């Protein structure tokens, strides 16, 4: 029966690999091959041939492949059986008889190979370390678009941030370990074969477990977020909107809506799902005005009305999210809107850069925006309006759609 074991050393740690293989011989195992799947998997079977020894042979740089057959034949004649390739620069041989002439890998070939492998390990480890700050910075920039931890938690971004952080630690541990291994390797002479890998194997196993755990947790979080967030958006009718539409709020502006222009700003509703909430967004945007002629230059939309409905998994989470949204800005004004547990209103002027919190966007003139934030149980509704009309006196109209019999309560 084949037994697979992960090779705990890099292919170029010749002395350690040989000592480790000798330990496997003592455990009654015989190496039959090496597979490269996420590192090096050594395949063993029960050893019935008695004691033997293994040698990792670094191939000469020049002329090896033109002489490969001859090379192996000479090895065979001198008592060595080819087992498998460990790397394109290294082969593993097994002594087929006790008096096999020692292979004696050429020291210069070994030194050159080690030097280049070591350099590669150092450079790649340093590159990984250099990439980590960029990774963290991008993550932080992404987080800037959120109002707080609950905002990030609802759509899974908080978990994604944790996943990225775990991945950054994974890379850091791997890179630091790579550098340490590289430095230590320079300090030992591989051909004296006095290296005892036991404690090192245990240490590396621990590091491997840590790395696997970090990678596994990071991947698991990613998978959870992906599978709980529906990538598909569904069209939903505007009639599903749980608050009134623009027609009830500003009939004069609603008259300008073009429902038939599906390539323009036809009102629409879409719904989707994220980690801890499902949502529906309804938009009623005014027609685009093109000051320089239809489709020429930059146009603008004179008014825009949108409703974002979030059905959050639990009421307590909805309460916290609501409180976080309110705390994120200091210009909220508490209002009462009938039919809702909580309501806040704010009016402000903004522009493109402020709206998206980015200095990279082009400068635009300011416009007025009014936002109403409502909560009822686990449902949080955000209503936004950009335009000339004053929504404040009409706030309770929003209640009308839910309770058609009475819409008289005034905003305070």
């Amino acid at each position: 029966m084949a037994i697979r074991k992960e090779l705990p050393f890099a292919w170029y740690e010749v002395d350690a690999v040989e000592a480790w293989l000798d330990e496997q011989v003592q455990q009654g195992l015989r190496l039959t091959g090496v597979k490269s799947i996420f590192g090096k998997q050594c395949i063993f079977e029960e050893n019935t041939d008695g004691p033997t020894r293994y040698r990792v042979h670094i191939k000469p740089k020049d002329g090896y492949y033109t002489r490969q057959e001859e090379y192996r034949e000479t090895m065979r004649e001198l008592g060595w059986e080819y087992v498998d390739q460990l790397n394109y620069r290294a082969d593993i041989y097994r002594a087929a008889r006790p008096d096999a002439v020692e292979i004696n890998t050429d020291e210069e070939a070994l030194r050159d190979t080690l030097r280049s492998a070591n350099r590669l390990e150092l450079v790649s480890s340093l590159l990984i370390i250099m990439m980590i700050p960029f990774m963290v910075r991008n993550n932080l920039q992404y987080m800037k678009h959120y109002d707080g931890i609950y905002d990030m938690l609802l759509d899974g971004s908080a978990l994604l941030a944790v996943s990225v952080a775990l991945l950054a630690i994974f890379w850091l541990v791997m890179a630091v370990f790579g550098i340490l291994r590289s430095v230590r390797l320079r300090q030992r002479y591989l051909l004296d074969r006095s290296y005892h890998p036991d404690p090192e194997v245990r240490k590396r196993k621990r590091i491997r477990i840590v790395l696997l755990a970090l990678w596994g947790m990071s991947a698991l979080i990613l998978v959870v977020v992906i599978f709980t967030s529906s990538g598909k958006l569904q069209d939903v009718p505007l009639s599903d909107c749980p608050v009134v539409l623009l027609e009830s709020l500003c009939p004069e502006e609603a008259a300008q809506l073009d429902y038939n222009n599906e390539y323009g700003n036809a009102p629409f509703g879409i719904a989707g799902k994220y980690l801890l909430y499902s949502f529906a967004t309804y938009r009623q945007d005014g027609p685009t005005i093109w000051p320089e002629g239809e489709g020429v230059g930059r146009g603008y939309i004179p008014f825009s009305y949108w409703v974002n409905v979030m059905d959050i998994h639990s009421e307590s989470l909805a309460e916290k999210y609501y409180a976080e949204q309110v705390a994120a800005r200091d210009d909220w004004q508490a209002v009462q809107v009938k039919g809702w547990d909580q309501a806040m209103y704010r009016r402000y002027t903004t522009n493109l850069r402020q709206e998206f919190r980015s200095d990279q966007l082009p400068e635009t003139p300011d416009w007025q925006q009014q936002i109403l934030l409502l909560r009822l149980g686990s449902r949080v509704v955000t209503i936004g309006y950009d335009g000339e009309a004053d929504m404040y006196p009409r706030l309770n109209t929003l209640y009308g759609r839910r309770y058609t019999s009475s819409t008289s309560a005034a905003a305070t």
Partner: protein
Amino acid sequence: MPKKPLEALSEPMFYVLMALHRQNLCGADIVTWVNKKTGGRVALGPGTLYTILPKLTDEGILQEVGTEGRKRTYTMTEKGGMLYEAECQRLQQVVRDIDREGDEHRLPFKKEA
């Protein structure tokens, strides 16, 4: 990257030339011959040999003279013969110099006050 030209004969290289001085041999026979001749003092294994053989054949010091199955047989060229003779003379000169110096210098090293 151009190959590094051979600058000096190493001890294993010299013994490879010695092995091929009077006979043509294949790789395994060269290793066996050198091990026997030096009593294992010169660590010439197949690993070392197949780093040496391409260098010596590229330099025109050795050449292949036959193939039998996977085995190739090597011989020394005229250039190789001259190089081997020159190295022998150099080593003989070294031995003569040692002899001329007498036995005293072989005593444990003592620095004069």
